[in-house]
């Protein structure tokens, strides 16, 4: 079981307190109706599947309840860093 550092609680807590939230830094388009079908498909469905550093969202669901972003290595499963939602990608 992973230990995950919640940037709001400032503590490493067990994985069972958290919920995974998919790839990070995919902003919802401000005006979806302006997007072509292909661009909307890109936003909806197309995700990275890197070997190595992966930017992803987590929520401290059974803690403070807040969403944050993380960089995790998909080979080692190790978290490189976690940081609050809204901050630039690390």
């Amino acid at each position, binding site marked *: 079981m*992973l230990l995950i550092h919640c940037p709001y609680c400032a503590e490493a807590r067990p994985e069972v307190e958290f919920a995974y939230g998919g790839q990070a830094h995919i902003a*919802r388009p401000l005006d*979806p*109706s302006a997007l072509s*079908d292909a661009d*909307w498909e890109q936003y909806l469905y197309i995700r990275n599947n890197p070997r190595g550093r992966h930017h992803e969202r987590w929520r401290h669901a059974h803690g403070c309840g807040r*969403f944050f972003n993380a960089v995790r290595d998909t080979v080692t*499963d190790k978290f490189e860093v976690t940081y609050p*939602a809204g901050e630039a990608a690390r």
Partner: protein
Amino acid sequence: MSGYRLPTGGRVDRAKSVSFSFDGQSYTGLAGDNLASALVANGVTLFGRSFKYHRPRGILGMGSEEPNALVTVDRGPGRTTPNLRAPSVPLHSGLVASSQNRFPSLKFDLGAVNDKLGAFFPAGFYNKTFMWPRSAWEKLYEPAIRQMAGLGDSPTSRDPDHYASTYAHCEVLVVGAGPAGIEAALAAAQSGDRVILVDEQEEIGGGALADPAQWAWLTDARAQLLALSNVQLLERTTAIAHLHQNFVVAVQRLTDHVAPAQAQGAREKLWRIRAARVVLAQGAIERPLVFDGNDVPGVMLASAGRSLALRFGVAPGHAVAVMATHDSGWHDALALAKAGVHIVAIIDVRDDVSSDLLDAAGAAGIAVHLNHAVIGVGGRHAVKSVTIAAAGSSAARTLSCDCLLMAGGWTPTVHLWSHAKGSLRWDADWAAYLPDSIDDNVIAVGGGAGAWNYGSGVAVSNLPSPKPVHQQKAFVDFQNDVKARDIRLAVQEGFRSIEHIKRYTTNGMATDQGKTSNINGLQIASEVLSKPVTAVGLTTFRPPYTPQTFGALMGHHKDALFQPLRRTVIDDWAVANGAVFENVAQWRRARYFPQGSETMDQAVARECLAVRERVGMFDASTLGKIEVVGPDAAEFLNRMYTNPWKSLEPGRCRYGLLLREDGFIVDDGVSARLAPDRFHLTTTTGGAARVLGMMEDYLQTEWSDLDVWLTSTTEQYAVIAVQGPLARAVIAPLVAGIDLSHEAFPHMAVREGTICGVPTRLFRVSFTGELGFEVNVAAEHGLAVWQAIHEAGQAHGIVPYGTETMHVLRAEKGYIIVGQDTDGTLTPDDAGLGWAVGKKKPDFVGKRSLARPDIVGAGRKQLVGLLTKDPQVVLEEGAQIVADPAQPVPMTMLGHVTSSYHSATLGRSIALAMLVDGRAKLGETIYVPMPGGTIAAEVTGMVFLDPKGSRLDA
């Protein structure tokens, strides 16, 4: 007969005899024995039948690597445990054990015919032979294989034991309490760190237990460990998994070592240990040698022979031969000779064994055959002799003996290291993989790190033999019956990766995970492929290290503790009034309230008619509820839901439809605006947490500029639905501060006042199509208000109704249930809810997807009603729909029935269904093929009762 108790020696207590039974026969062992040592002491060599060929098998090893001697231990009804390794079963008075995989008896086994047909059971046999025909597989092959092959039988009755679990934290966790692990624990303890030392055996000591010279040290070290307050010693505890960041899972066996009558408390305990540092001291496992007849009972690892003699005081045989490719076999032979065991000869493939060993053997009077190998074993149920020959020579000679020890070198136990994603490096001297590097704070010590001096040796894939490999019964994986020839065949047939060879031959795939077979299999594959071992690869070790009981993994999570059961505040009343319950999203809900001997159908019919004709009451407390507060609350809901919310006036309600961004319905519910900045949302019972999470996601990550607060209030309110033409008359005497008249309080409105003197949010809403109210009161008043309404309703013939009646009533009106009538692929239009989509809204979650080409195109499934031609036939929910029942199988399926009931009000069956282009098929006949015959039905609209909705305005 092989085996007997030596007159002296061992750690057994010779003053305490222990009686036990094996395959129905009584035996006597000694305190300190395990099942294997006690049976060998009694001359038992035959422990089981092998998996595929049903070959007779004895013990191979004396530790958790044992592949052959799998037994079932019977501790009483529901307490049989199959597939236990005999050397890992501690002996206690009254132990009842039996062998497995034999029919009718261990000595005479019909399945052994498979062994004679061995040539027809090559690698990949299952894949090759049983591919065709399919019907024969189902009717013939599979049942036959299940009868003949396989391991022990699972118990079929409930396990009466209970299992505990705990978390633990420490600075240093040491896995394995051999000399290296004990030294590591003692050293770590000096610093004051919290230390946990786990060991899987009955007593700590590891290899030292079979070395009397170390016993005095061991006794002292154990006393030291027990005296240290910062050391926790967990004996009989197997570390089964080493997961991320030094999270180690271990199972402690608490009662299996004592007689069932003496067992107290939990049977096993699961430890979840988080350690700052892990020291792996798992030791090494001796490697068998591969030669013709290496599985005859009495052929075992030299380390097993040593353990039997020096730890348990049991000779492995009366006349013992030793086949070595490694010095450790010589040391074992000399130790056994010193303990009084007759050593017939040491055979070694090498011709350059050290003079020290040769001198010692000479001094002990042991015959030595260098540059020789065992090429055959006499005996079937027990070793009678071995045949040896010099390398390259066909001149054989036979040595009479009843036991053959194999010393093929050592394989460090790197399982947990691999679990933790540590890398390995091939070490040519060891002919084994050793721990290399690892990210976490883990070190490997002792034999498991290659840091143990067992002497030197050579690695041999097959012992040299004049017999071709394909004629040898030379086993690599004893538990899965994989021979050297199978691995050669797999390579010949084109398999190159060890991962593929493993799966094709099943080498290393049995319950022992190849503890004794992986490296031998790898060496053979490497030789046949003419590639270095490192180029062939290594299969991955996965948890658990040894098989475990499901009980240990489940712990307390069974029966009432399997998952939380949520009960409403009205639950006690429902129990007292005879409700039949169903569980919905962890809530226990009253399904119906049978009277007398009513069936469900009768009760539901009565409850439905009461609501339609008079009035009913329903506990709707499980509805998800979210309080949405803040100046931007209306803006927020406007973006989340398909409907317009900003125009909703305080005091009014609206049916809200929630989509995902892909445009598909995820939830719905009626919500009320209480004030400009305050909404009372409801969600489906099962969707409450999901909807709150989804809303929090948007609020926190997309629209953090909105000033809105979300609070779950599901459990804060009890909700009582009062439905039916007399609903107003029932609650009127109880309500104060609210004008209940239709004009002042119309359908889809909300008012705040009191009921029975307590504050209420009173909704005028209906999920039945009747005049209806939903009374929201603080949960602590829920039961009292429910009882008051029930009392007041008596004069009006009120009946309580349950979820089944609720389902029928709403289906009569064509109201959908998200998750039953939708499946995550329905848009609002598909569900006939296009009216709930705000056409003028520029955006809401999912809006853009509703314009995707595959959403607006024809051919989508749409919700419709179905009326069976025979009104008494009730369709089965989930049944498939076709246009032409005469078409050949497989038929083109057009959709399925989502809801189906008998409607007492309508006197016939009704159904809802998802149907391709359903709304274009109104009036058409479709067919539902069922095992009992095809059912014809007409496609209709979804509303079966009061399509104008006039009953709502009563």
